Every structure is written in C-alpha cells, then in structure tokens.
C-alpha cells in the first residue's frame, strides 16, 4: 500500500544552524501517528516543510506516492493535506458555518467570478447540507450561526478541524491541538477526533508535546530532538525508551 505521506531526508538549515537533519517519516492510510519532541526540536519547522510554507534545503515530500516538493501550499492542500494551527487561525467576522462553506466551495472548485456575476455565487443547498453534516459530527450544529468571536478556544479548534474536514483530507495534520486547552477539553477533542476519523478514514499526524495526549491517541510515534529523529515505533515503546526520556528530562543521574 502506498503511504499517504512520505518524507524522505528532509533537511533545513537556518543561517548555519541545522533545524532538521535528514528527517524521514511515513504515514499509512487511516493511521494515527505522533510526532513528538521537546520545545525547539524542529517539529514546527518539519511541519512547515511538509506543507510547503518553508522550502527544505534537501529532501522530498511525497503525497500518495507523488512528489509534491515543488508545489505551493494551497495546491498541497487541494491534494489532500488538511491542517489545524497551534495558535488558532480563524476567519474573523464570519460565522462558524461560513468557515466550512468557503472550504467546501474551494474543494468543489466550481466557484468563479463569472458565476458570481451571473448571481450563482450564493451558497447552494447541497453545500449547506455538507457543512451541516460535518457540524453535526463535531457537535457544533447549535453554534452554526454564531460569529466566530463568540466561541471558546476549544470550540474554535473544533471549527478548525471542521474547516479542514471540508477539504476531505487524506491526511490531517494537527499542530499542538492541546495548547491552551485544559485536560478535559483535550480529552473531549481527542474523543471527537477519533469518532470522526473512524467515520471518514483519513490519517492523522499529530505534532504535540503533551505526552499524555500522544500516548492515548496515537498508535505509532516519531521523536525529534535537535532536528534529528531519535526514535520511532509503537507509541508506548517509544515513550518508554531511555533516549526519549533523556531528551525530555535530561540525562539520568545516579543517586549518590
């Protein structure tokens, strides 16, 4: 089976400092994979290289076997990468439903200036239906017409997830979804994500430093430290390994 996502030897340096050195990673369809590491390990840089926000110095990114390394961000999105943001990124001054609507319209790719001018640019019934389905799935239905500014952070994250889902992603990249949420909210979010994933079958790559969430949510994990992969494998094994503990907690000191 072709991997949904495959990164091969991604390397990125900033002004002589190696942020990523030859990182390779693979996500199979329907999998839940974690990418963990302490602050400054290069998680966000790697993320940005996958999405095309940053251009890696070396290495390739394959999406379902196709090399997408030279494609701009929005084209990669259309090819099937959906994402959420660590610092929430919503469209101000619009409602929850409008967030999903624009994503749906872009996915269908049938909107154009000429259609607008002919008066056919308004939301159509089938588009609204598709949005409401996802809103229902995420438990956001009753907030559909709320302005985004009225939402809590946790609800905002769900809207981001909903917006990403409208693009029918094959892979959903979650960028530190637990940041700013308390434990209960994080657990709720994880539960919702699992339900939705079971229904739609996309793969998830979770970038996170909350070890608890990673261990409960993902099946397999990669660990980054100082720009290099130091471990990979089933999440519980990875988290138990000495190297990972050392990266997070520092070298073990024998008691005198």
């Amino acid at each position, binding site marked *: 089976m072709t991997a949904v996502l495959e990164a091969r030897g991604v390397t990125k340096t900033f002004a002589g400092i190696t942020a990523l050195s030859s990182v390779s990673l693979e996500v199979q369809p329907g999998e839940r994979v974690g990418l963990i590491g302490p602050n400054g390990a290069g998680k966000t840089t790697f993320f940005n290289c996958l999405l095309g926000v940053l251009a890696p110095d070396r290495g390739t990114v394959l999406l379902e076997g196709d090399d997408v390394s030279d494609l701009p961000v*929005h*084209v990669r999105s259309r090819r099937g990468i959906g994402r959420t943001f660590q610092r929430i990124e919503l469209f101000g001054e619009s409602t929850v439903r409008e967030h999903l609507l*624009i994503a749906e*319209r*872009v*996915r269908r790719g049938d909107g154009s200036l000429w259609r607008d001018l002919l008066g056919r640019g308004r939301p159509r019934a089938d588009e609204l239906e598709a949005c409401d389905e996802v809103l229902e799935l995420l438990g956001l239905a009753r907030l559909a017409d709320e302005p985004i500014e009225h939402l809590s952070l946790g609800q905002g994250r769900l809207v981001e997830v909903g917006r990403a889902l409208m693009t029918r992603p094959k892979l959903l990249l979650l960028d530190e979804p637990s940041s700013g949420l308390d434990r209960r909210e994080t657990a709720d979010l994880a539960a919702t994500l699992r339900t939705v994933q079971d229904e739609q079958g996309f793969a998830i790559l979770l970038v996170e430093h909350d070890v608890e969430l990673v261990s409960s949510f993902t099946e397999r994990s990669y660990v980054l430290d100082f720009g290099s992969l130091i471990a990979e494998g089933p999440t519980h094994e990875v988290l138990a390994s000495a190297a990972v503990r050392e990266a997070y907690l520092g070298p073990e000191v024998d008691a005198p």
Partner: protein
Amino acid sequence: MVLAASFVEDLVRGTLQGLPPGAVYGLIAIGFVLAYKTSGVFNLAFGAQAYVSAALYFQARNEWGWSNLAAFVLAVVVVAPAIGLVLERLIFRHLPPGSSLAKLVIAIGLSVALPNLFELIVGFEPVAGRTPEGLLPNGAGVFYDPLGLYSFSRDELTALVVAVLGAAALAALFRFTAIGLQMRAVVESPRMTELNGIRADRVSAFSWALSSFFAGLAGVLIAPRFNTLSAPDFFNLVVVAIAAAAIGKLVSLPRALAGGLGLGVAIAIIDTFLPRIVERQQWLEPIQENVTPAVPFIVLFALVTLWPELRSSKEQTDPLAGVDPPPPTPAALTRSPWLTRITIVFAVCFFLVAGLVVFLRADASWLFVVTQAVILSTIYLSITVLTGFAGQISLCQGAFAAIGGFTVFQLADRFGMSVLVGAVVGACIAAAVSALLALPLVRLGRVWVAIATLAFAAFFDAVVVKLPFVGGGGTSLLQGTRVPRPVIGPWDLADDKAFLVLAVLVFAVAAYVVSAVKTGTVGRTLAALRGSEVASRSIGISPTRARVTAFAISGFLAGLGGAMLSIQQKNVNYASNFAPFAALFWLVLVVSLGARTVEGAAYAGASFSLMDRIIFQGTFIGWILRSEDRIPGVFPLSPKWRFVLFGLTTIAFAKHPEGLVENGKRNAHVRMAKLSARRDAHREPSADDAVPGEAVA
C-alpha cells in the same frame, strides 16, 4: 581626454547640486523613521506637518510682518512639536499595538485633514506664483561658489548646513543623553523598557515631538524650492522621504540620511545627463522633465517589491511582543437580515423621492452635482471591493480612474470612437493595469501594498500622464483633454437629465457587480484571506489569484467611473479629478463612511459632491427654517471643512473598521431591540433581552 574631464566635472557639479535637496529629504526621512521606530506609525501625515510649518512661517513673515527668527521659532520650534504631541497624546497612544493598518488609515486621514484645518484656522490661502522665502534674507539672490563648479544659492546652503547640523544633533542626543538612551530602549521593546521603570509613553511622546520638529524644519527649508506653497507638493515630499527611509530599511537613521542625500544627488545627476541622451533618443522628450521627479517613486516601488528584507523588518521584533493582547474584535460582526431589509426599503424610497425632486425641480448646477455624486459612487465601489472586501489599501485608485478617462479621450479624439465603447475599453485597460500591478504586490503586507500603490500613483502622476498617447501631450495643454457626450439612437446625452439617467444605470450595474461579488465565491474567498492568510492557503485558496481578481474588479470599476466622470465634465480634468492627493480623499471618505457596503460608497459619493452644496452653504438649514433669510450668519461654511471632518473621522477606523454608517445603524438597531425587549419584559417578565446574531458595541 577632454570629454572625460568634462564628464567628471558634470558629475561633480550634479552631485553638488543634489546635496541641498538631498539633505532635506534625509531630514524628513530621519523624522519619519524616528516616529516609525518608536510608535510603529507609518506617518503619511508627515508631509502635511511639514506643510503646516512651512505655511505658518510664510504667513507669520509675510502677512503678519514678523521677523524671520520669530516666525521660525513659532512655526518650527513651537507649533511643529506641539502638533506631534497632540497627535501622539490624542490619537496614536490609544491605538493597540499591532494595528498597523488602522494607524496607516488614520495617518492618511490626517494628511487630508491637517492642511485644511490649518488653512481654516490661520486663514492661509495658497497663492500661485508667490515663491516662499527661506530662512536668511535674499536667500535666492546671493550665491556662493566654493569649488568653481556650482553656485549654491544662500537658501540651498542654509538647507544643507541646517540639515547636517540637525542630523548631528540627533546623533549626539542618542549617544550622550539619558532620554536618547531611553529612546533607543523603547525602540527595542516598549514593554521591556516599562518593566525597567521607564515610562515608555513619555519617551514616545518626546520622540513624536522631536520627529515633528524635524518635519517642520524640513518643511521650512524645502519651501523655497516650490513656486507655490500647496499641500499636495508636500505630500509628494513624504513619498520621497519614505523612499529614502526605505533605503535605510526604515530603521536606520544614518542610512535614512544617506538615502536622502543619495536620492537628491541621483536626481541632480540624471537632470544633468538626461538632456544629452534625449538629444539622441527623441522618444524620451515628452517625459524628460518628469523622469527625475519620478526617480524616488521608482526606487520606492522597486525596494518594496524586490527587497524582502525590507518587508520582514516591518514587524518590530519586540521580545515581549507575544504578551500583547490580540487586536480587539470589531464591534459588530454579522448583520441581521432585518437591518438589510430596512436598508433596502429605505434606499428605494429615498432614491425615488430624491430622483423625482431632482428631475422635476433641479436646475443645471444641481443636476451637475447630483450626477457627479452618482458617478463618484461608482468609482468608490472600486474601493469597496479592494479595501472593504480584500482588506487592501490602494492609494492609486485615482490613476485607474484616470486611465478610464484618458482612454475615452484618446479613442474619441483620435479614432472618433463612441465614448460609451471607449468607457468600456478604458475600464478593461484599467482592470488589466490593476491586475498587472497586483502581481508583485500580492505577497506584501497591507502597509506595503499601500506604500507601493502610492509610489505607483506618484509615478503615474509624474510620468505616465505626460505621455502624448495618455494625457495628450502638448496639444492638450492648449485644447484640454476634451471628451464629447454620446448619442444613443434618439437619446442625446448632451442633455444633463438624460446623462443622469445613464449615470444611475451605470452605478446600478456596478452596485450589482459588487454585491454579487460580495455574496459569491470571490467575496467569501477574500473574506477568508482577510481573516487569515495561512488558514486560507491551508484549505486550498490561492492568495495570488484571489487578490489579482480583486484588483482587476476594482480597477475595472474605477476605470468605468473615471470614464463616466470625464464624459460628464466633457474633459478629463486630470489634475482636479484624479491626482494622487485628490484620490487620497476618496479613500478617506469611503473608509470613514463604510467600506464594506454599496450604500457606504453611495454615501461617500453624496458627501463628496453634495455636502458642500446642501449643508455647508446653509441650504439645508434654509429648507428646515423655510426661508433663505433665516440661515444663520455662520453659513456658508468653507468647503474645506469636508476634508477636516472626514479626515478626522478616520480615527474611528481603529474601533469601527466597518465605518460610520454601518456602525450607527447597528447601534440604533441594538437600541431598538433592547427597547422592544424591555417592553416585552414588562408584559412577560421572563423574556430574554439578548438579540440573537447581534453583538452589542
């Protein structure tokens, strides 16, 4: 050998000639950088401040008979810093950090308001042909020639010496005084400085005063170079200063000074050599005189679009920037369907009544201003699309409108083409130019888009308009850029009433286009981009495509409106209709009244051409009092109050980016809803008084 020697001699002469103006450019650039560094304000009103000082100096000296020194003290030492202090204390201090777009809009409003407010208070009237005098007596008449190559006039030498002294004094202040040290600290991080027990707001007030002092000083020094004191010339000066400041990456004071000197010298050198090139290249002749003033604009445009480091320095890298609260959300978010319905009903009734009155009662002059209001509203819709929907500030809408006007003129004049066809062609050309211009701009931040479009507008003004195939060249100086009125079948539009009908039809089509775009894919895409560019890209939106589309629509509407305006006035009248400074007021009007809606544009058009006639001349009061004799003595008010009023209204943009009209309506709606809720509560105590879908301001 002889040739080489004379070449070097010319080069040195050009350099010497360029130093005095260059020093003044550098001085303005320093002041500009000072304000930008300490408060993050891209102070476009800097030219207005320089103008106020220059005009006050002139007024005190020539009209009030003050001595040079007394006039200088008043204009530069007292008033200039005072203006800076007032602006900082009353306006810019209260804006949240990070609201760079709001600050820019307010600065644009101020550059319209300040000169007019000053002229109203002091009673100053720019008089053509009265060249302002410099600081020393007989400044234009005494010459010095230290090197035997170029004779400096006394004014030029004064400018050079004072500018160098000013820059040196500033350097000393930074280096050797406590306040200088504090200023450097505030630049680094205002919050960090405050944590160390220094009051950043005081330091910021001081640097505003200082920067405004430099504006005033530069204004008085540069004034003798103009043959008339007028605000638009000083506005162009600020564009030059921004170019110089951009050479210093907007943060380095010494490099800003060097940039100013460099620009001055470059202009003088081109001035020296260009005539010789033109002798061989005849086609350059029409633009020969105007290439040199355009140099700073070209430099600025090139720097902004081609030098990524310049843009990345825009976010001040305050180590504590992360603790800033996010900018406040606008007061009102979504519009209730009720409000839309009321608006539509009101608009239909209003237009029916107003239309009937105009058709049955209006005389020729009323017809003229009403038609102008309708056409301007069409142009303003171009701002609605670009600023309201796409969130981009363009300062070159005047140029797009002028493209429409000139196309009609050229096609009718040369080929006898129907002006209506010409208008559509003109709109299409304007759309194409606008889309092309957008390509290098789509990746820039909003402030940089504004600056780059400003540079384009200034370039268009200085060079493109002078080209024979655009502005008509020499012949148009004698004959004007004449445009005939069209005839459609039996319908002769030379008749003003018939033309008004056409103008209303064109506006209706434009309004339909704008509202269809707003509710359609393009509008939703632009709204998403306005909200978050990264998030938009993450769902597959191409920012380039969306923004180029917005620019093209906007250019089309501006070009169409510009063509209509030229047909109405039977002349393009570029200088009074479409010059960059005139077009600046368009943006101010639309943004303060409402950039998000068609009705905002309509109100803006009405305000531009009808306000003077109806309100300032006292006509409206006369209608209410039912007699022209009872109009109070304060009327007629000067039409300049229009600029002051709307210029200052932009201050509200920081809180209410949706504009006055929309904000007022929402507030009224909320109040009504509360009232009715209270009434319900009397009848039924458990009633909920919250209004669904409405945020309370």
